[in-house]
């Protein structure tokens, strides 16, 4: 598989920082086209800073970023921004349009796409996130989850190859979060989108093919969700809420129950519990 994101020895420092300090230190990783990668880590560990480096919203001190074969530079930054769609944390602060359809069309307007094509792409995108009945609504009359789905529709309409979610579900209630996650999975299934999701939500991380752990500006660990979740309570130190099955396992172990050492999904946990009961 080809590498759609290739980051080599990325160092980043905010302008107001002292010369010997770095927010991101020597970050290197690759993401294959079509992969879903979760990035986890504490608040302030540098995840958002990393995301903003990938599409040139911030310029690194040193290092090389290659997106879909193009090296990120002042010349390529606008091309690269077309290839990357970004959804941020706060649903309100990224809603640019005065109505739902205007917001979905915003990226297309920026690209100078003719109006006829915009009309069909906006309608199509809204249908895909199931918001077609809200096309003329103002954002004030939408829930957080609906706003985030509109943001995703904006991405669908702009057809990026990479979708970066920067804690896109963290301000939503469980219901809104589930809706948004489902929409992302749908998007992923419909096209060979590459997804990079920054999250504290274990379910979201569990959906990924691979998890990267960032701590204090360093990339400290990398593995499949199953490998990472085996760390148990150490996960919390990594900035993840421990998954419910793992918490249950820990509690059972304290009661003297023999528990499997491998990571269990919620379904796997339920199956194991049934077996445990019928073996008694």
């Amino acid at each position: 598989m080809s590498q759609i994101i290739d980051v080599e020895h990325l160092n980043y420092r905010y302008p107001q920082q002292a010369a010997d300090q770095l927010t991101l230190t020597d970050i290197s990783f690759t993401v294959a086209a079509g992969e879903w990668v979760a990035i986890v880590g504490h608040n302030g560990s540098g995840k958002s800073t990393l995301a903003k480096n990938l599409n040139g919203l911030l310029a690194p001190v040193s290092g090389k970023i290659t997106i879909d074969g193009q090296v990120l530079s002042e010349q390529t930054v606008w091309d690269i921004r077309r290839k990357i769609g970004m959804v941020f944390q706060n649903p309100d602060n990224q809603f640019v349009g005065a109505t739902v359809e205007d917001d979905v069309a915003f990226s297309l307007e920026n690209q100078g796409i003719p109006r006829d094509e915009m009309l069909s792409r906006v309608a199509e995108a809204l249908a895909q996130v199931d918001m077609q009945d809200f096309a003329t609504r103002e954002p004030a009359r939408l829930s957080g989850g609906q706003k985030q789905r509109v943001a995703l529709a904006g991405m669908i309409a702009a057809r990026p190859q990479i979708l970066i979610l920067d804690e896109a579900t963290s301000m939503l209630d469980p219901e809104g979060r589930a809706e948004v996650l489902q929409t992302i999975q749908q998007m992923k299934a419909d096209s060979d989108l590459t997804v990079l999701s920054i999250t504290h939500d274990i379910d979201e991380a569990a959906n990924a093919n691979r998890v990267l752990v960032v701590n204090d500006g360093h990339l400290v660990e990398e593995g499949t969700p199953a490998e990472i979740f085996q760390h148990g309570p150490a996960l919390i130190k990594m900035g993840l809420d421990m998954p419910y099955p793992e918490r249950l396992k820990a509690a059972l172990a304290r009661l003297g129950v023999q528990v499997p050492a491998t990571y269990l999904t919620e379904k796997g946990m339920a199956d194991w519990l049934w077996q445990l009961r019928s073996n008694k």
Partner: protein
Amino acid sequence: MMSKMIFGRYIPGNSLIHHMDPRAKLLLSFYFIGIIFIANNWPTYVLLFAFTLLAIKLSGVKWSFFINGVKPLIWLILFTVVLQILFSASGGQVYFQWGIITISQFGLVNGVYIFCRFVLIIFMSTLLTLTTPPLELSDAIEYLLMPLKVVHFPVYEVALMLSIALRFVPTLMDETEKIMNAQRARGVDFGEGNIFQQMRAIVPLLIPLFVSSFNRAEDLATAMEARGYQGGEGRSKYRILKWHGRDTWATVTFAVLTVALVYLRA
């Protein structure tokens, strides 16, 4: 509640007036304010009122909205009318005189005319804002500002600013409400005490509001850049305005009205 007073003014509807091009509505409303000053006798004012009431009837918006539009300004109107009655040059029969104060027939009639002008202007501008979504108004303003591009006035940018400002009004209203409640919970009284105490109570409201607005603005700018915004040039437009036959007809109607006014005036 504040938002309802000022901005939730648009009343969705399906009337001819609702469907008019916002550019036509905006221009004709301004034009109407201009031709009010042609009127100078009873027939002309009656004609203007008949015209306005017909337009209101056509819009299907309830009369009470228009009466409510006049209410907040009633003291200003009455003040102006009283000044006009008391201090205008005497003419016709003089009913009362004391020093420089004169109540004459002329002054009374003038006072009534002024009152009519105010009411007409308020009715017409209320009709404009009640039947036109703010966003359409901002589109109309953008279009009408277009000639200023010649002198390098940033028309697209101003239009985008306007539409973003409109889009954030309800968001900031909600936020204000939230902060007010938070401050109330800490014992701040809003709307109590003398004017200085009231102003002091606003400070703990404004500071968090400013801070959060700046944060929002920064987030919004980041999101816009991430979505490829590079300034107004080279953008295409999703929303467009369409001039229909009805807009031409409305314009013609106003022309006829003007002719009738000129013909009827004293």
